[in-house]
């Protein structure tokens, strides 16, 4: 299945245009206000690959913030599963790593059909990231800036051409029938790819070791006062969870339209909310903000590795961008790691 090819950059738009005839093409686009967002592509030439990370992550195409599940009336149910075929182009390695985690979460034991329906109809072309943002720290986690496996297609920008690595059947399907666009890579192409990866790795400003943080949490008791101190700056916006490409929590809501008629949807939820674990009789198991933050970080740094063998964080830095109080993964992990738990 694994196959490596070379494509002239000039052929990219032709290739994408052909693929677009069979599926919806989604890619990072630069808006008038200079923001980068993933959206449906109208003009292929407007796709931006040399850009900062998108906000939000491409998770919204697999688990949308609000997803209608089914409509119901007294004697019928109409399941609203999304089966749109999508190609998501220009995704970063960290986001692909996050999708790999989501696949495991939604596919383990109980299979989430809504997620799987979208997932099976979506194919990703990721790109070896050569312009990490100041907020990025995937390099310490092995989730970027490039991937060795678990991708559909991975592109490396070699100046005038792309090294195209195919890693899955869906990826191979995209290449089939376009052999005239591709040639076989030479040894120098691999050398060039190595240079790109080296140059990318040297550009990271943040060096965060979640493993060190994990060890510190396991071996040194972190006082709850630390979490309460972090909590003073938490706005309870839920932004860290909403923006996180790994977080999967949702709430299920039924809405009645008329007598007996209605619909069910799910909507992103967050463990940072007090009501997330509320029980009957007005009992909040995690009433203090600090205990919820602690739970979230324990989940990502301890329980995820126990269960999936990987951290529940891919180092994309989006919580750093979106947290209004600057109490994000990078900040908290760094503070625990270097032992800066002073009250300021």
């Amino acid at each position, binding site marked *: 299945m694994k196959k490596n090819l070379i494509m002239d950059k000039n052929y990219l738009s032709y290739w994408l245009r052909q693929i677009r005839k069979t599926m919806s093409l*989604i890619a990072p686009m630069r*808006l*008038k*206000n*200079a*923001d*980068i*967002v993933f*959206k*449906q592509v109208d003009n292929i030439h407007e796709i931006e690959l040399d850009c900062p990370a998108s*906000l*939000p992550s491409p998770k*919204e*195409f697999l688990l*949308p*913030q*609000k*997803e*209608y599940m089914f409509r119901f009336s007294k004697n019928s149910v109409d399941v609203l599963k999304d089966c749109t075929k999508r190609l998501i182009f220009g995704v970063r390695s960290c986001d692909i790593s996050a999708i790999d985690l989501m696949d495991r979460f939604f596919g383990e034991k109980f299979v989430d059909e809504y997620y799987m329906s979208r997932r099976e109809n979506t194919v990703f072309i990721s790109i070896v990231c050569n312009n990490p943002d100041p907020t990025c720290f995937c390099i310490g986690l092995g989730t970027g800036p490039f991937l060795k496996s678990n991708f559909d297609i991975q592109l490396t920008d070699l100046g005038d051409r792309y090294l195209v690595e195919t890693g899955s059947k869906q990826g191979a399907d995209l290449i089939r029938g376009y052999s005239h666009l591709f040639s076989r890579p030479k040894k120098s192409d691999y050398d060039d790819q190595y240079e790109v990866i080296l140059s990318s790795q040297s550009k990271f400003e943040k060096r965060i070791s979640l493993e060190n943080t994990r060890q510190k949490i396991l071996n040194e008791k972190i006082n709850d006062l630390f979490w309460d101190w972090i909590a*003073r*700056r938490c*706005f*309870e*916006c*839920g*932004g860290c969870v*909403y923006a996180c490409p790994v977080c999967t929590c949702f*709430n299920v*809501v039924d*809405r*009645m*339209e008329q007598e007996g008629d*209605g619909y069910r949807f799910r*909507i992103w*939820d967050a463990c940072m*909310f*007090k*009501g997330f674990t*509320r029980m009957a009789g*007005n009992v909040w198991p995690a009433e203090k903000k600090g205990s919820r933050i602690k739970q979230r970080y324990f989940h990502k740094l301890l329980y995820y590795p126990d269960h999936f063998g990987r951290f529940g964080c891919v180092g994309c830095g989006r919580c750093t*961008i*979106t*947290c*209004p*109080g*600057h109490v994000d993964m990078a900040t908290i992990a760094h503070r625990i790691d270097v032992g800066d738990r002073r009250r300021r």
Partner: protein
Amino acid sequence: MNKIATICPYCGCGCGLYLHVENNTIVGVSPVRNHLVNKGSLCVKSWNCFEFVHHPDRLKYPLIKEKNGAFRRASWDEALRLVAARLLEIRKSSGPDSISIVSSAKSTNEENYVMMKFARAVIGTNNIDHCARLCHSSTVGGLADSFGSGAMTNSINEIVHAKLLFVIGSNTTEQHPMIGMHMLDAVDRGAVLIVADPRKTQIAGLAQFHLRHRPGTDVALLNGIMNVIIDDRLVDIPFVKRRTEKFDSFRALITKYPPEAVERITGVSAQDIKKVARLYATEKKAMLFYSMGITQHTTGVDNVCACANLTMLTGHIGLPMTGLNPLRGQNNVQGACDMGALPNVYSGYQEIRDPKSRKKFEMAWKVKLPRDPGLTLMEMFNGVLKGDTKALYIMGENPAVSNPDVTHTVNALKKLDFLVVQDIFLSDTAEYAHVVLPAATFAEKDGTFTNTERRVQKISAAIEPVGESKPDWEIICALSREMGYDLNYRATHEIMEEIALLTPIYRGILHHRLEGDSGLQWPCPSATHPGTPFLHRKKFAKGFGTFMPVDYVPPAEMPDSEFPFILTTGRTCFHYHTRTMSRRTSTLERECPECLIEINPSDADSLQIKHMNVVRVSSRRGVLTGRVYITENTPGGVVFMPFHFGEAPVNMLTNPALDPSAKIPEYKVCAVRIELIK
């Protein structure tokens, strides 16, 4: 999936966000990263601001109330014809001033302008007001007296560069979260944060100085601070001499407020007052912020003037990173005021008493306009009970929950000959209407919002209006045509052109200049002007800044043996005002489903109340029940309740006593009794 950039419909911060649209349905929201206000962040309300748009409760067609009191579906034609006929009839029998209009701080500038024109040109009355009366009318009035312009003087972007932030009466991190974010950034860069608030709010927990004065003693506290500044010779004498007037009478008054005397009134130690006074006066880049804690008192205007005096005394105004910054509550409350949805001014605060501006509007609108200022919001409802007001047209407001002493308001609504309510949901107020008109939400229309820092920003329709609902401006235009006045615009940018033509401070603000950008801050006097980040540079709007000597007057109702607690009201970060939108948002409603009465542990002990017990809270005006939430954050002798809940309408308890000039009610202080229900 498409992503439409627009502005959040909740608070006055004016954050940029994208609505994610698939098949004419909004499925998500995300922050704009390159936005000057929110910089990639959003608060919990913004992150969930799209859910109510598709709620099944949305009004999808006009409703007419039958004789038996039930609503029936009607066509637009029938509903508009009925409204027009009834309004014309009442105008003929009782005169135009028997009709009052309540405009909306949730609607766009264009819609408020059209509504203001409808009241004045079509109905022929100046009886138009909106909820700014209940939040910042004291700012508009007080700062007009002191500076000549009642708006936030400086910009949100300056906060991070300030060296001192003095926040009084504002729960910034919860009610203006993105401004709170800028404040935290400033603190991280070494700024001193001083918070004056009886409650220990989140931002107070981050402050170097937290002054916990007794509710309603703001004037005394500020006068005490100014007394220290004068005594310590920290007054900016050149500024006071060159730019202000009436300093001498002010100084004479301030001598009555030595810090020791102020300590007895406010409960804040003289030591702290002195420290804060010295810090504020000696730091050049010092910004002063205030919000409802200052304005919602019978002494609201006095409180605002005291703040203004403090900035003038120290010369902390008319420069970047200084100023007096009232934080406006609603997404477009600044704009609704700017557009003249007020009984005494046209758009851009042009006095209706001034014959020159009246003539200008008469020429533009080709109609004779009424000369005398109209009724304010509370006077309208009093007018109904007196029999002077016969008809009320309410656009996007919910006075049946938001007015003080709501029993009085509901009686007035019931007594009206004719009530039209134009809203997105069947609100508590709409239940009393004769005709209900379905309006489109922020996600379904174009237009502009003006945020708290005077920034005019474009909003864009993401989806088609739900059901048969229409944008407010289209409804008003159709109604006015039915009434024989041709209000005719094809799109909102045409309305903006007319606003620019008639309003000097908006002259250069046109839709094409706002596209894909963070907007423009008024005053913007020409089509090439870049906007004004801070006001009163070199000269105050009215020429000289005026020191208004204000004395401390206690709140209208103080606790006594019968009603021993002070009740103070406010909001939580999960709901917005009367909850018409936020209760229909699953996450927000789940977080905060009921009214919790916050009380200090020592008071709870003495009343033998336990956490989550149900208590009866009564005042001289009403009674309600609710659960108690025991917290140190509320000081002793005080209880705090949010006003969101129609089920526990705290405004049944509040005191409708008004500030004599701004007519703002005293929401922040009234006396109550608490009893445990066994």
